[in-house]
């Protein structure tokens, strides 16, 4: 386990804890964002190989050297995708929060009792 992946797991735990225990919708969305960042760190660290460099061919890394000296490009590409999706989902969550505030004049989920079982 690398330092980055440990940090990623810590962020996932913090974000999940925040999402589950906070009562304010904005704080829940912040928790989601923290967890999202943790997931990105874990995915990036999965593709990292100690001592290797970024998979970009230039003077410092010739095309022939790439398989032996570059890290895995696939997790990086996946994380780039995941960041944009995370942004879109966060925007959607925030607009739900805005809508709920407009209807109920509250962001505390204890006051929103329609979905309670």
């Amino acid at each position, binding site marked *: *386990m*690398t330092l980055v*992946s440990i940090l990623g*797991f810590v962020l*996932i*735990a913090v974000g*999940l*804890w925040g999402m*589950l*225990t906070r009562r304010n919708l904005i704080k829940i969305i912040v928790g989601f964002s923290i967890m999202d960042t943790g997931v990105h760190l*874990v995915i990036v660290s*999965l*593709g990292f*190989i*100690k001592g290797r460099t*970024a*998979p*970009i*061919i*230039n003077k410092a890394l010739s*095309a022939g050297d*790439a*398989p032996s000296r*570059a890290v*895995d*490009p*696939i997790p*990086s*590409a996946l994380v*780039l*995708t995941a*960041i*944009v*999706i995370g942004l*879109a*989902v966060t*925007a*959607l969550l*925030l*607009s*739900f929060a*805005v*809508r709920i505030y407009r209807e109920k004049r509250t962001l505390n989920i204890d006051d929103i009792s329609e979905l309670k079982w």
Partner: protein
Amino acid sequence: MIKRSLIVLLLIVTAYILYPLAILPPQDNLGNAAAAITADGVTDLGAANLVTSVIVSYRGLDTLGEVTVLFLATAGVGFVLFRKRKSDTADTEVPRQASEFLQTGAIFLWPYIVILGIFIIFHGHISPGGGFQGGVILAMAFLLIMLAFPGKALPEGFRHAMESLSGLAYVGIAIAGLAIAGDFLNTRILPTGQTGSLISAGAIPLISVAIGIKVGAEMVTILAHLRKEEA
């Protein structure tokens, strides 16, 4: 009490799911797919940035899906925040002016931010960057204008036109790949050129431009919806 124990239970289940990932031994070599991409990617596609090769070409279908998700999220934001105009009072109300510092700074910085965004979009295949990153930077330039001059935003029709046309261009290039080179999203419909030069890597820069405009337009639309809500 029942809430608390459910939360603890959920955390334990999550830890159990993530545990195999945590004890994964560190890698010494690339996996099969990664080895193939790093070995043949440059000769195949001519793009110096292998991450861009994966995003735009090898896993281009995922990117197309992702752009669709982004579009859906934008449409969702617009749908959720939609509000019927009650009267004209809300529109005629003049929003508070931004401070002079913000206005002057926005006018000064705007061209540089736009140039940086365009640079990053066009250099996605030879250096870190690409359509997504550059598109977000372009959107930030317009956010700055929206903050400094409330009421001034990109016209809605223009945004929707850019969004639709860039999406159409992306799908058009993908279908051209199917027609000319034999695969959906095959970027070798144009010559791959000299790796590392600006005009190289086949259709990858064109797709980057399409993605950049689309992401920028979507972001500005999301920000404009949220901004309208606040005003």
